[in-house]
């Protein structure tokens, strides 16, 4: 009855795609991005104006500072302190600079929306002081230059693939990609697990299952739902890819999140042994391994191993879920879901042999998986995990 599975999948797809909920889901990152952008614009709107600064009665300093391009301010000279205070209180300037015994002070008021960048003023004024000192010591222009130039300094990371990635930009981009991928995968996973849950809950609460099971089987329903949701996911990803192709420069949502993501990725220690092992564990690996691979802390082979383990675990869980679904679809057991999942995985079902047959197809159909039971699958996974743990922890 493959056809029926397809019908169930199509029904889920059709009803979801018609609903507002799905489109809200698809568009939410874009909306979120737009909101971030708007908030950012509103907050920074004032800051983009060039502040007006008056230097009180010091034309020489005015000239030096207005030549300094790192200072984002319009600078002019004002003959007296009184004049400067006037200008400030009338809002014609945003602040004034005074020099007294070699100490510099910028006075602003609280009406102005613009801000002076303290760091760049500090640097510029330090430079002015150094220049004064070199002049006093009669140093040459070259010495002056050398004194002012910063030390040459770069950071490099040696990766496990043997290459040396040249720090900053490359790693930064990789971290960003890895983190974005992790968050995207995680979010999508949560969303679609939620949808599957809703679908099942919906049918249980609307008491429609008996009608559906009279025409189909629980397996048809179960796998139909999973396929339907995968179709939805494919659609969503397809839309995102389309959107990126058309507006490659506009993944607003992701840009808006880069700072946030960078923080997360930066604060973790990618070489940590715990993270290394965790990145192989199914259901953690899709996010963790993705980011570790992106920042080149793991090799492609390791990523494939993690993917393989994930696929095996997914199949095992799907298989165990199939039985739980069949058992629970027409209620009627109070047994905890987790203990059922465990039983499903380990194949301990002797006691519930009858319940097991619930709604399963009658007749000769023998499931090839049955002999190749979930117990064995779980064992294989366990062994692989132990080997990996040995390889990375005890080596």
């Amino acid at each position, binding site marked *: 009855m493959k056809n029926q599975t397809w019908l169930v999948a199509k*029904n889920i797809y059709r009803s979801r795609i018609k609903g507002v909920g799905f489109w809200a889901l698809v568009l939410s990152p874009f909306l979120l991005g737009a909101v971030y952008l708007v908030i950012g614009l509103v907050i920074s709107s004032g800051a983009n104006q060039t502040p007006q600064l008056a230097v009180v009665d010091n034309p020489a300093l005015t000239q030096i500072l207005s030549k300094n391009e790192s200072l984002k301010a319009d600078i002019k000279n004002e003959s007296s302190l009184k004049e400067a205070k006037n200008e400030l209180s009338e809002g014609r300037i945003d602040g004034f600079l005074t020099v007294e015994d070699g100490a510099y002070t910028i006075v602003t008021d609280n009406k102005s929306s613009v801000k002076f960048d303290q760091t760049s003023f500090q640097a510029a004024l330090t430079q002015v002081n150094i220049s004064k000192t070199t002049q006093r010591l009669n140093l040459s222009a070259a010495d002056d230059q050398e004194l002012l130039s910063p030390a040459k300094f770069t950071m490099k990371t040696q990766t496990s693939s043997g290459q040396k990635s040249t720090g900053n930009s490359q790693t930064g981009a990789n971290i960003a990609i890895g983190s974005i991928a992790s968050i995207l995968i995680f979010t999508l996973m949560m969303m679609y697990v939620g949808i599957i849950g809703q679908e099942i809950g919906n049918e249980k609460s609307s*008491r*429609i299952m008996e*009608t559906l099971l009279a025409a189909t089987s629980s397996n048809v329903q179960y796998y139909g739902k999973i396929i339907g949701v995968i179709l939805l996911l494919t659609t969503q990803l397809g839309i995102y890819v389309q959107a990126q192709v058309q507006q490659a420069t506009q993944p607003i949502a992701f840009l808006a999140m880069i700072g946030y993501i960078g923080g997360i990725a930066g604060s973790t220690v990618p070489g940590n042994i715990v993270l290394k092992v965790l990145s192989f564990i199914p259901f953690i690996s899709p996010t963790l391994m993705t980011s570790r691979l992106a920042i080149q802390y793991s090799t492609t082979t390791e990523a494939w191993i993690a993917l393989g383990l994930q696929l095996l675990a997914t199949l095992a869980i799907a298989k165990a879920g199939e039985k739980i679904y069949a058992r629970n679809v027409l209620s009627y057991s109070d047994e905890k879901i987790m203990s059922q999942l465990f039983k499903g995985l380990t194949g301990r079902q002797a006691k519930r042999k009858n319940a097991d047959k619930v*709604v399963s197809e009658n007749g000769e159909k023998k499931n090839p998986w049955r002999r190749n039971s979930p117990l064995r699958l779980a064992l294989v996974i366990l062994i692989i995990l132990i080997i990996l743990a040995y390889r990375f922890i005890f080596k």
Partner: protein
Amino acid sequence: MTLKIDKVRKSFGDKIAVDNLNMVVKPGEVMGLIGQNGAGKTTTFRMILNFISADQGRITWKDGPINQEIKQKIGFLPEERGLYQKMTVEDQILYFAELHGMKRADARLKLQDWMKRLEVVGKPKDKVQTLSKGNAQKIQFIATLIHEPEFLILDEPFTGLDPVNTELLRNEIKRSRDKGAAVIFSNHNMSDVELLSDHLLMLKGGQTILNGTVEDIRASYGRTRVYLESDLSNDELSLISGVESIEKRGSGRSIKISEANVGREIFQKVAKDGYVQAFVQSPPSLDEIFRMEVAEHDQEDLSAKSGVAK
């Protein structure tokens, strides 16, 4: 092309839900399943549909197991009604029809016809949640029958419907039967069962206590009920030996007699002037039989228990 239930037994823990159940439903026949709540009716349906498996015995359709292919030809109306509340009537019906192997286009055409016949208030594009309870029930009924099933299983199909709508649904079930479907349905209302069933089977605590055609079952109780409209007083009637009880019913009286011959005596007495307004001698109604049987088995259960106590 027959449903056959052969010596089926099912228990849940210590509780026996159905014991030694035997039943045959042929094409073009309606089997009424009656019994109190918890008698085993729904369990029987669930076993037929393979939702739960029987502990013993066999359930077959055309001598084979009821597999997925056959399930597609079944129309099942569960006792617990349910529809996708947020789907439109049309989407829902078409989905169910497709699951039963029907083409969407065919189902769409038929739906119009069905909605008209069942006098559904609403349009195919309406969401189910906007329908009244009765109309939603009709929609579910349509979903059950639209694919023209060979075998209909209806668990309490008339519950919650007024007599007019009950009549509409009953006619559709008859129409389906006349086209050759085998029908099995359960009901509490005996007059509905009597109007629709060719056969009936009565369950009590999982045991079959009546099984046969409606006529045979009623006939087996003899013509021991007389409906009478006459001036003859109750006292005079009571004098006739074999009269067990007299109850007022409508504009006449219902007289319970010990055996059919007593009816002749009553008739002779009330018609001695050559005229009587109404005299009908018949077997007890199914309703009466149902209540008699329930009471009788309750009595047996009670004495069995007290016997154990002694």
